[in-house]
């Protein structure tokens, strides 16, 4: 028995020791981190990055708030950054340790959610739209009606990514309101539209990229870069920008207040602001990033991709989502719960 117990103790100790130096724990969206980027980082610095992934901003926030997760870096969307800051979950960065900070493109430097980029470093940005398989439906897909009042051909075939803020914003803009509205009339309309549409959906799930590519899914409310990747494998997948209004988003990397591997985290943050490395990030996930000069390191098809270059006529419909007030969020959550039953 003694032998057994000491064997267990040895295993336990070994398991603990594995969690030692030269490591970095990155908590990022699933299917979003370039393996080449991590490999290059490890080769240059000797730091091994472990990625744990999440599906939604809310899940990430809930996990970080629960505490003791052991993560060093997290990648929240713009409208969540202030929540992290207010709750003291992320720390202000020491910009002197980030010489590449000057590489951030001017337009992404003084952003409303983080003026001067004191807390967050740009990762990628993009839009939320609707992917439709052109074999299934060939009409105009640049409208939220694709999932809120779907044409016959798409009934029962649409997936909706269950990201509350994105879906609520799309519905609110569709009924003529705006994101984070507290106007009960508008909210009621949005709720009714969503509830009426839900029976016509196939699923509410993430992970649509391979399913769109393999025709397991024929339409989905999803993110532009992910649809881009699906289109590269299946040219029938088209991306539509809802003319009634669609959310723009930017995900940025932030360092958690209880980060253990602070030096490694700074090294990584500085590393991803190198244009060549930011190019790697975009080359994998197929979204634009906020680093000046990274374009030349991206695949050529990114410059003309319809998923990346928003047509002029829809440009004004794209809106960055604000951080909703607690009141607006209460409305959101109530409608969302009803929707997800």
């Amino acid at each position, binding site marked *: *028995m003694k032998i057994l117990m000491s*064997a267990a103790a040895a*295993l*336990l100790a070994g*398991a603990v020791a594995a*969690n030692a130096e030269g490591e970095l724990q990155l908590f990022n969206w699933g299917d979003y981190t370039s393996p080449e980027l991590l490999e290059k980082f490890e080769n240059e610095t000797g730091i091994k990055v472990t*990625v744990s992934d999440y599906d939604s901003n809310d899940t990430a926030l809930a996990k970080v708030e629960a505490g003791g997760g052991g993560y060093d870096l997290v990648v929240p969307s713009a409208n969540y950054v202030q929540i992290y800051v207010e709750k003291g979950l992320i720390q202000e960065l020491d910009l002197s340790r980030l010489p590449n900070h000057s590489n951030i493109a001017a337009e992404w430097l003084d952003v409303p959610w983080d003026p001067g980029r004191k807390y967050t470093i740009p990762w990628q940005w993009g839009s939320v739209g609707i992917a439709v398989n052109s074999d299934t439906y060939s009409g105009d897909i640049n409208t939220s009606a694709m999932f809120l009042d779907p044409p016959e051909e798409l009934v029962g075939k649409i997936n909706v990514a269950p990201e509350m803020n994105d879906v609520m914003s799309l519905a609110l803009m569709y009924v003529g309101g705006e994101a984070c509205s507290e106007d009960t009339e508008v909210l009621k309309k949005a709720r009714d539209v969503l509830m009426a549409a839900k029976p016509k959906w196939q699923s509410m799930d993430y992970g649509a990229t*391979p399913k769109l590519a393999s025709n397991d899914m024929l339409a989905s409310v999803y993110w532009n870069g992910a649809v881009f990747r699906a289109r590269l494998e299946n040219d029938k997948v088209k991306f539509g920008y809802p003319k009634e209004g669609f959310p723009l988003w930017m995900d940025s990397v932030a360092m958690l207040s209880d980060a253990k591997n602070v030096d490694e985290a700074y090294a990584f943050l500085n590393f991803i602001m190198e244009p060549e490395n930011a190019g790697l990030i975009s080359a994998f996930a197929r979204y634009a990033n906020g680093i000046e000069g990274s374009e030349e390191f991206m695949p050529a098809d990114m410059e003309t991709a319809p998923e990346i270059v928003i047509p002029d006529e829809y440009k004004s419909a794209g809106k960055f989502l604000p951080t909703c007030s607690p009141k607006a969020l209460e409305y959101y959550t109530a409608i969302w719960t009803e929707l997800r039953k």
Partner: protein
Amino acid sequence: MTIVSDRAFSVSRLPGFATIAVTVLVMLYLPIVLLVLFAFNAGPSPAIWEGFSLHWFPRAWANEQVKEATIRSLVIATSAAIISTSVAVLAALGTTRRRKSPGQTFVYLMINQPLMVPEIVTAVALLILFGFIKVATGYQGLGYLILAHSAFCIPFAYLPIRARLEGMDITLEIAAADLYATPWQAFRHVTLPMLMPAVAAGFMLAFITSLDDVIISLFVKSAGQDTLPTYMLGQIRRNMTVEVNAISTLLIGLTVILLTAFFLLTRERNRPQK
């Protein structure tokens, strides 16, 4: 008995029973067989056969995440099986071959509790408790997963050991005691050797149970502590590649090997009694 039943009340006289049974067995295996088959598919689709190939196996193993998750799963399962089997042996010695008492019923209920409580409930409870401890102590290692797994593996280790103890001949131990062996000596040289097949069986069941767990691991793990099943869950929901078929095939293979060993052990256990 079988002969009598065949003549007087044969299965064929309950119409359709044999057909249903055979269909059930086929349906039980069809998905698994196809899953295993497509692990050897040369093409990238888990549904369209493009010829035989072994290349998905080295490819899965070359994936750093798969490798780490596999090692982590094995470390956890081995530790949890050792811990749960050790405490289960003691508990089985403490609760069998004695008069029934309320305390004993309580222990029995407690040990079987993990079988009765839905896993999601335990998972949520552990998320909260371990969250506290992680913040308070700063320790975020594998210990939590090992402890949680040890707990729900205890009944699986306990049941075969208890069954063996109850069926064991007590006279040898009495003889040992008559020969002035101390209780420890009697245990070490008489009881334990006789108990060993059951201990090994319990260990294996605990090991498989730990290796299979998804829900509790999902809620308890910290950063970078994916086990093979939690990694697979993420993959199944995102990228359905043949790689997952390959991993699944290896897990099925491991289960079959362990179960075969288990049956050989328990058969040996039964033989001297009959």
